[in-house]
């Protein structure tokens, strides 16, 4: 358990968006479980922190929400990706790849002694 990583600043939004892209409309609990599973149970996620992030995305117009009924007949609020959200994914993914690539350059010399 103590080997689990915290969610990095700014990455949660992209994870939510990606999850909604691949899974379609989903409720908060579903998104949380899906993120955990996708990360191979390597992430330590307090489910509660998801909700402010969802609200922010909704306010920015990347996702929209509506109350519905879950597969086992529970009332739940479902989130879905909007068209603006899809564009946002492309942009954020690009940004993230760029950041990762830059970081990779910094990290590589330690494996490659001068």
């Amino acid at each position, binding site marked *: 358990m103590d080997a689990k990583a915290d969610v990095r600043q700014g990455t949660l939004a992209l994870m939510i968006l990606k999850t909604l892209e691949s899974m379609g409309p989903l*409720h*908060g*609990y*579903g998104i949380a*479980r899906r993120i955990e599973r996708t990360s191979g149970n390597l992430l330590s996620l*307090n*489910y*509660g*922190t998801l*909700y*402010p992030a969802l*609200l*922010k995305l909704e*306010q*920015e*117009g990347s996702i929209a929400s509506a109350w519905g009924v*879950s597969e*086992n007949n*529970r*009332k*739940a*609020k479902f989130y879905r990706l909007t068209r*603006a959200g899809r564009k946002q994914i492309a942009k954020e993914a690009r940004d993230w790849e760029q950041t990762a690539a830059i970081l990779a350059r910094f990290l590589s010399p330690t494996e490659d002694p001068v």
Partner: protein
Amino acid sequence: MKPLRAWARRLAGLFGHGRRDSELAAEIHSHLQLHIDDNLRAGMSPEQARRDAVLKLGGMDPTMEEYRARTTVPVLEHLLQDGRFALRQLRKNPVFTSTAILMLALGVCASVAIFAFVDAALIQPLPYRNPSRLAGVYESAPKCPQCNLSYQDYLDWKKLNHVFVSLEAYNNTGFIVTTAGGAQPAHAARVSAGFFRALGVVTALGRDFYAGEDLAGARRTVMLSDAMWHKRYGGKPDVVGQPVTLDGAPYTVIGVLPRDFHFAPAGSAEYWATLDASGQCEQRRGCHNLYGVARLKDGVSLQAALADTTLIARQLERQYPDTNRGQGANVAPLTAVITGDIRPILLVLLGGAALLLLIACVNIASLLLVRSESRRREMAVRSALGASRVRLVSQFVTEGLVLVACGGLLGLISAAWSMRLLSSLIPAEMAARMPFLQTLGLNGRVSAFAFAIALLAAMLFAFTPALRLSFAEIREGLVEGSRGSAGNTWRRVGSKLVVLELATAMVLLVGAGLLGQSLYRLLHVETGFQPDHLVTLEVAAPPSSYGKDPQAVALARQIVSRVANMPGVKHAALVSVLPVNFNGNTDWIRFVGKPYSGEHNEVNQRDVSSDIFATLGARLLRGRYFTDADDQSKPMVAIINQTLARKYFPGEDPIGKQYGDISLSPKSIRTIVGMVDDIREGQLDSDIWPAEYLPFNQSPDTYFNLIVRTSQEGESILPSLSATIRDIDRGIVALGGSSMEKRILDSPAAYLRRSSAWLVGGFAALALLLGVVGLYGVVAYSVSQRTREIGVRMALGAEPGMVHRLILKEAGWLTAAGIFMGLAGSLAATTLMRNLLFGIQSWDVITLLVVAAVLGAASLLASYIPARRAASVNPVDALRAE
């Protein structure tokens, strides 16, 4: 775009965020249910399933906080909270709240209303193109720095000057308009053809005058004011080209002036015709009946224009020594010509309103200070419970804002109302002279002014109590029964504020006192006649029917005899110009048998019917009055006033002496047959000029004023007077009927002082009231702070009388300081308004003493109440109180 949208949602979240909270709660509930379902399916016990779900969700408090911060804007949220709290606080204390709001509303109302007048009169640009380049142009004479031009001189000035793009001329006149419903009087102006082009005024309809349309022989054309166009022609565009009969002559309407056009020197002129180049006066260089208005060439200053016109005047003086001797030139900015004497009065009033606002603000600030004192405990508790200093200060700021918002709004509404009231109180004749007041209203500039003073007040109210809030004191507030230094600090600050208030009230009271006395002295100035029981009526007969002298004389005789025989009429007479009006309509005279070197002996000329002096109640000093028989078939005669006799016949008997025009032409020679005591022909505050009274029958006119001495009071006879005149000829118009006393009261010199005395007096009364209330507040507060001290003193044997003295001494010092400061302020302020004073010095000792006494008495009364309360304190209660 994205952050914008998010902000919009967050702002929307300010309202009904209770709904959002419950929605989040529902969502979290459903989340837990889903998780528990899963856990149960995974084989956990119900209790374990629930525990695990809650643990995984994590602590909800920070989440909720973050969620809520995201749904709204925290700063605004706090502000709203503060606002609601402030409203609750203010509602809880209705006496304080309504007093503060009323005082502020009063201050805002007075200053905004007066500023609106200042704006309309002095700030708003005149409705002309580039008005700062326009100038009024005058001939000047020794007694008359801004006098009319003669037509001949005007033509020469126009031709010879090098400084004006154009020089135009105008004068006021009246027309008798022939309509289907009979003859109607109308205000009118005659202007040179380029007049509107020089002002840069473009007609709203039709065309302007052509160049040369003002020359003799041109077709007679006329332009209409917007008001007349709507009144008589219903605003129909086909008015252009229509014929209209003015003074019996045919004119053609060629255009309509724009709605916002006004030209104060021409009053409320409804018909604008061209100059009458073939008129009798226009033929004579010595007959001055025009005013000039000019547009300066680029780069030419007023001084340069004055120098150039003065040079021309000198040249004309050499060329025409008879008529132009001593005739100089004067050029003044047109803006000054138009706003005239109203400028100093408005500035005095604005000063008064500003002082009133200052007192109101100081009073409210001190009330807020007292309140902040009594709320130290509350502040300390809030601070101890974790409220940050910023939150505490913002509470005061919010309360200040709420007060200012309410007071400001109320003030603004009442200002709009007072503006309408004040402008409706201006007599019509005065209003016609100030057409720029039509633009009076809550325009952008006035609103900006109101906003600015509201902002200043808000800052004052917010920061006065907030500044008093320091950490040390906040903590101190919690200590039971603490008093510390705070009470004393406030006593020092508050008493300084009260001194300022009393001083301000003193300045206003002195101003009002001096203005009131000026008015009284002005109205009691010796007029040389008895104005009670006199009514006057202007009469204009059409020149087409009465233009010949015998016709005018016959008409005058008929009117006087018909009116004199009406019931309730004691005397009736005619006069060319009513008394208490203006010095002007002058004649240049030369005495037979006295040395003459071409100087202009300028005297007021008044053409009067035989009964005039009996009607007016004037005093004959020597010789005889006119009789009806003094007409053109008899030798020419004149009656002079005492000033003329004193000036030109010192130590001689003027009766029987002769004089004539400047060339002593035989036709003009008159014999002086009588001398009357001076009658005030000019305004009440202007000098007596030498005057000659000539028999109407020897120089008749179709325009004159009827003066009637009645047996009953007031103007009740006016309708039957007009009817009598209409009965003689329906083509004659009678207008401007009024009692003489009302005319004098409404005359510009009296009106300006009357209105300013009333307004400043009103301000002063309010200032006195507010200042005394402020003093009462300070003394009462001081007494409440010193209750224990007084208790100790009394327990140790102090008599009530000593306690009285203790409190009154404190109040006495404050009052004395206020009066002393006010004295210094009054001397400065009243020096600024000495132009408005009449017959009284700005340092009038009696006024200063009386005002100081009134202020002292009022202050004593205000401090007596708390002093009595202090003296009646029961020492035991006082000592136990803490």
